[in-house]
């Protein structure tokens, strides 16, 4: 799928009409208790969604308006590559898939958290990083693999150069973030048949092997102490 196609789908999702009642249509409309129960659940889920939004801002280190347009920095929780103002992924905003199907509340929050992944570099696996769940890193980022391929093709050389500079300066915890990122990229490489992407990112992975070496050296040093 090309980026143009992704963009079209994204625009289509933005145009999706939202059901203002946000009611699960499997609920019997003649059953007032079931409707009330559903309403309570929806209200509570929306409140949790607001908290998830706060979490995303915190991870990103800034609000949508404050996102740096360019630049690359490491925070305590993430590797942050700012390449443009971030926005919530359409699925999170609308609570629906691009095909218009209603998302489960878990998936809606997952999509929202994936917005943080977008914020912090189009798939650096921050969702997984903050939860400490490697599987989530892979799952969260792989679903955006196509988008990432476009991203790396467009911004790759600049980001790679900056990443290497960052890796040299990174502290132990930040290096761990970079290593998680590298593993994620390796996983994506295994999943794609895109030769150009493999060449571009494969080269970066090889160069960033130095980060792993530095990490191992640090661990050995710590063990001795």
């Amino acid at each position, binding site marked *: 799928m090309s980026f143009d196609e992704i963009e079209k789908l994204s625009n289509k999702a933005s145009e999706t009409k939202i059901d203002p009642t946000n009611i699960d249509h499997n609920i019997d409309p003649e059953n007032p208790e079931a409707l009330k129960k559903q309403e309570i659940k929806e209200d509570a889920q929306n409140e949790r969604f607001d*908290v998830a939004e706060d979490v995303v801002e*915190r991870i990103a280190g800034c609000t949508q308006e404050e996102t740096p347009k360019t630049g690359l920095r490491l925070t305590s929780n993430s590797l942050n590559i700012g390449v443009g103002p971030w926005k919530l992924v359409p699925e999170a905003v609308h609570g629906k898939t691009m095909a218009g199907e209603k998302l489960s509340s*878990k998936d809606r929050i997952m999509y929202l958290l994936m917005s943080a992944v977008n914020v912090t570099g189009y798939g650096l696996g921050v969702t997984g990083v903050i939860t400490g769940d490697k599987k989530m890193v892979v799952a969260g980022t792989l679903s955006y693999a196509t988008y990432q391929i476009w991203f790396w093709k467009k911004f790759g050389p600049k980001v790679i150069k900056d990443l290497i500079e960052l890796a040299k300066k990174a502290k132990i915890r930040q290096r761990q973030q970079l290593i998680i990122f590298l593993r994620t990229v390796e996983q994506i490489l295994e999943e794609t048949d895109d030769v150009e992407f493999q060449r571009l990112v494969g080269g970066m992975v090889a160069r960033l092997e130095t980060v792993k070496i530095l990490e191992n050296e640090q661990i050995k040093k710590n063990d001795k102490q």
Partner: protein
Amino acid sequence: MTNNNSKEYLEKLVVELCKEGEDKEELSLWVDLYDALTEDERTKIIFNLEKELKALKALK
């Protein structure tokens, strides 16, 4: 509202809410995220779950 912000209490609330038919997958996600949340975020989530549980129980 309780001042208990512990993970164990959050898990307990999740179990109770699942009995009320809440989405287990979503609520389990909050348990997974617990360690990454700030105290304020934990308070908000726990307050939210307590409120929902109370409202659902009041329907019976």
